[in-house]
């Protein structure tokens, strides 16, 4: 069993696009999906003579992320140029941070099937994104879209602390949740606003020297990250077992073939010729800024998860789903201020609300109804004035229109009839019309009871309070 003799060593690099409105060094919009080269100006086009001016918001976001990941924030960090030629890199260099990044020495706790683990974060730095090359083989040409050039990124690098693909995926999920929670990233892996590269190597168990590593790219979902790492670990073990040696290289995950393969590139390593960016002075982060960001830091996912369980008596499953999005959990807590049956409230959230959000689209932050309306609806159901099924119908209507539950109930005529006098009359009629069934019941065929309930409900178009109907029928039939 060769695999058992090897210990995989994995480090991750995440590139997270920051949710600023404008780019990192110019005023252009960061909006996704604009016409090619629409969101550009002389600065992000790299025209002669242009100079970068730092977007302060990027620094605030970097500090916020650093604090959320328990990093040390460097008071003076340095911008550097990373030099290489590529058509999507308009200046021929990327402005990034090299030997003095803004955040260092962080950590992130993750849960895995083997229990908890703390992953050390080596560094977080700010940099500009590159543009995008579009190849048009039919016309024999390549085009360059620089809309993305200059969009701010955080690069978040772990120490090689992860030992398998599950830990890698858990780390990425936890990191993404945090970045989304603190409002700096939208967490979208498909559109590439949360991208991950993995450095993978294997070494013999008990060894102290790391094996040669490869860098994996093009994994735009958690599933692909797991598959690519698993494949790569197995591949490296196989190479070593067959007395070969792992080559340090960049490999791409091939979604079609389910394998990693070497990226087509020159053999020699890139020399990026990093040097301090002379167009930007050293970046000073004030204590005031750090305190301001620390104060505005929301409760982080782990803390929220355990608090929701203890404060509302929810299961870990319920809490986890509520915490999937900070706004969802916040809305739950707003409703819970009025409505004290937390379990029932959670059921509505996990059931109806989540279903409607999924089916009809929309965001928790832009719901049409207020927590007060939600409370009013639940009270109608609890008081038995409408049936639970009608409750769902009213809820869906309220979700779509934002109308008051009372208005919807009366417009749709959904009020449940619990009035014993009115129902008694109806029951008398039903019994009078069905003497045969009464006889069967009296002869001991108690299943027929359901038939009477059904008749009453039909006559009431479902608006009769079933508890009252049951009670009255039982008394009548003796």
């Amino acid at each position, binding site marked *: 069993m060769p695999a058992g003799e090897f210990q995989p060593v994995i480090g991750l690099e995440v590139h997270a696009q920051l949710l600023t409105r404008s780019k990192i060094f110019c005023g252009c919009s960061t909006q996704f999906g604009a016409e090619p080269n629409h969101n550009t100006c002389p600065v992000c086009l*790299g025209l*002669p003579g242009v100079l970068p001016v730092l977007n302060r918001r990027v620094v605030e976001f970097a500090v916020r992320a650093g604090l959320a990941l328990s990093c040390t924030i460097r008071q003076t960090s340095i911008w550097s140029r990373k030099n290489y030629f590529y058509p999507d890199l308009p200046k*021929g260099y990327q402005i990034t941070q090299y030997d003095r990044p803004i955040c260092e020495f962080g950590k992130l706790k993750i849960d895995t099937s083997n229990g908890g683990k703390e992953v050390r974060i080596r560094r977080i730095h700010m940099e500009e994104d590159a543009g995008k090359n579009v190849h048009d083989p039919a016309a024999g040409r390549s085009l360059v879209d620089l809309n993305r050039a200059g969009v701010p990124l955080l690069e978040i690098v772990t120490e090689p602390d992860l030992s398998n693909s599950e830990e890698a995926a858990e780390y990425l999920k936890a990191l993404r949740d945090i970045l989304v929670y603190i409002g700096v990233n939208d967490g979208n892996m498909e559109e590439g606003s949360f991208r991950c590269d993995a450095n993978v190597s294997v070494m013999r168990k008990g060894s102290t020297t790391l094996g040669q590593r490869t860098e994996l790219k093009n994994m735009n979902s958690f599933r692909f990250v797991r598959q690519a790492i698993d494949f790569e670990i197995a591949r490296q073990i196989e190479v070593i077992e067959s007395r070969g040696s792992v080559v340090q290289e960049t490999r791409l995950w091939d979604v079609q073939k389910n394998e990693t393969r070497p990226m087509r590139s020159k053999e020699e390593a890139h*020399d990026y*010729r990093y040097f301090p960016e002379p167009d930007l002075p050293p970046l000073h982060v004030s204590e005031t800024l750090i305190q301001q960001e620390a104060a505005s830091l929301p409760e982080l996912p782990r803390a929220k998860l355990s608090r929701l369980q203890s404060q509302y008596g929810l299961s870990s499953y319920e809490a986890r789903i509520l915490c999937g999005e900070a706004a969802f959990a916040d809305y739950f807590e707003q409703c819970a201020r009025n409505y004290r049956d937390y379990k029932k409230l959670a059921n509505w959230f996990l059931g109806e609300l989540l279903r409607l959000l999924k089916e009809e689209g929309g965001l928790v932050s832009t719901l049409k109804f207020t927590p007060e309306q939600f409370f009013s609806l639940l009270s109608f159901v609890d008081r038995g004035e409408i049936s639970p099924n009608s409750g769902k119908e009213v809820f869906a209507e309220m979700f779509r229109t934002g109308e008051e539950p009372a208005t919807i109930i009366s417009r749709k005529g959904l009020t449940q009839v619990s009035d014993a006098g009115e129902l008694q009359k109806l029951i008398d009629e039903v019994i009078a019309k069905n003497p045969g069934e009464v006889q069967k019941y009296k002869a001991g065929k108690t299943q027929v009871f359901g038939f009477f309930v059904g008749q009453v409900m039909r006559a009431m178009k479902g608006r009769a309070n079933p508890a009252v109907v049951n009670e009255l029928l039982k008394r009548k039939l003796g």
Partner: protein
Amino acid sequence: MSAAELTDLSILELSKQLGDRTISSEEATRACLQRIEKLDPKVKAFLLVDAEGALAAARASDERRRSVGGASPLDGVPVALKDIMLTEGVETTCGSKILKGFVPPYDATVVRLLKQAGSPILGKLNQDEFAMGSSTERSAFFPTRNPWSLDRAPGGSSGGSAAAVAARLVFGSLGTDTGGSIRQPAALTGTVGLKPTYGRVSRYGVIAFASSLDQVGPIARTVSDAAALLQVIAVHDPKDSTSARDQAPDYLANLEQGVKGLKLGLPKEYFLPGMDPEVERAVRHAAREYERLGAQVKEISLPHTKYALATYYLIAPAEASSNLARYDGVRYGLRVGGNKGLMEMYFQTRAQGFGAEVKRRIMLGTYALSAGYYDAYYLKAQKVRTLIRQDFASAFEQVDAVISPTSPVTAFKLGEKTEDPLAMYLMDVFTLPCNLAGLPGVSLPCGFSTSGLPIGLQLLARPFEEALMLRIARAYEREHDFFREKPPLA
């Protein structure tokens, strides 16, 4: 007033007449254009003359002066720009084939400021390609000639800017100075050239050579004119993160206050065995003149001066190698081999687009930044740069300004130094330290050689003390108005 008399006026003299409306800007501009037409075929200072644009601006200025008054003292005073500065809608080549045909979509901040001040812009002036050179012979298009002797170089890289002012083709111009590119040509053409403190003038829209050293500055015929031009461009620019925030003082206000009681330092390292004895004599004479005018002159030492050249030729090419990466044929300027694949396009575009000196510096800089060499070259150069800065800081504890020759020699013959890059690099030996230290410096005429070539005196001052530096320069100029001498052009 005849056209020739008109172009002899200084900026401030013209400004006064424009204000009195005894001369119109259109007349002044036409006088310049006539003179350019007549003499520039000999001097070859201009890469591009924008007669139409300049005349339109001149007429607008005249209209303004008639109706609401001048927008600034410079309103209506025609000037011209080194071709390194971007001009919206007007071709900007930086003296390079790689940018031939490049028409910028925006104005450099200094250009915008000049336009706002009301100056008609006569055109774009020749320079060494990407400002890399000390003679303007490295222009990809043609060399500019020294108006004082047409078979000699006007210095560089802002040779066109200096020659145009010396030949009275324009009233003033802007150049850039990375290692002496304003002061050295000013010295060689008998003009006043000022390099401001690093950060005093915006670099936005000025094509970068070495970002930590580049500064824009004026070239004019008199110290006061240089001060007036500096006043227009010394403005904080939010588009340049290295731009100084404090407001510039009034550079003309204390210009005439003399040097009584000031202390001037004569650095012993700035008098080399190989230098032209006539230059040394003129500068030492100027020092004695300052003493006569009431200043105290003492010998000082700037011990790390001998490392300045080596330091400069590591830092400047390193930054240049990165700054010039954008000229790749992808988005603008020259593209060669576009149908032969990416690598071939890169190679051919840059091989054909850049001249030999630019390639030499890109290679020097790439080498200095390479893995394994970075510490020994670039990093060490940065440390020496700090030492050079400290030399000046301690010198300025003893003196108010440093005086020295600007260039070790007077104007040299065209072709004399082009075969020997090191000899050319030595032209900047007295001007480089100022850029490395980020100080303001000015060159002003301090006499002529026996063969009638101008000699330049350099003054260096503490950061942001341009006003004091100009005052010291003006004190000398008032006593010795070499600027009234005209080059022997027909």
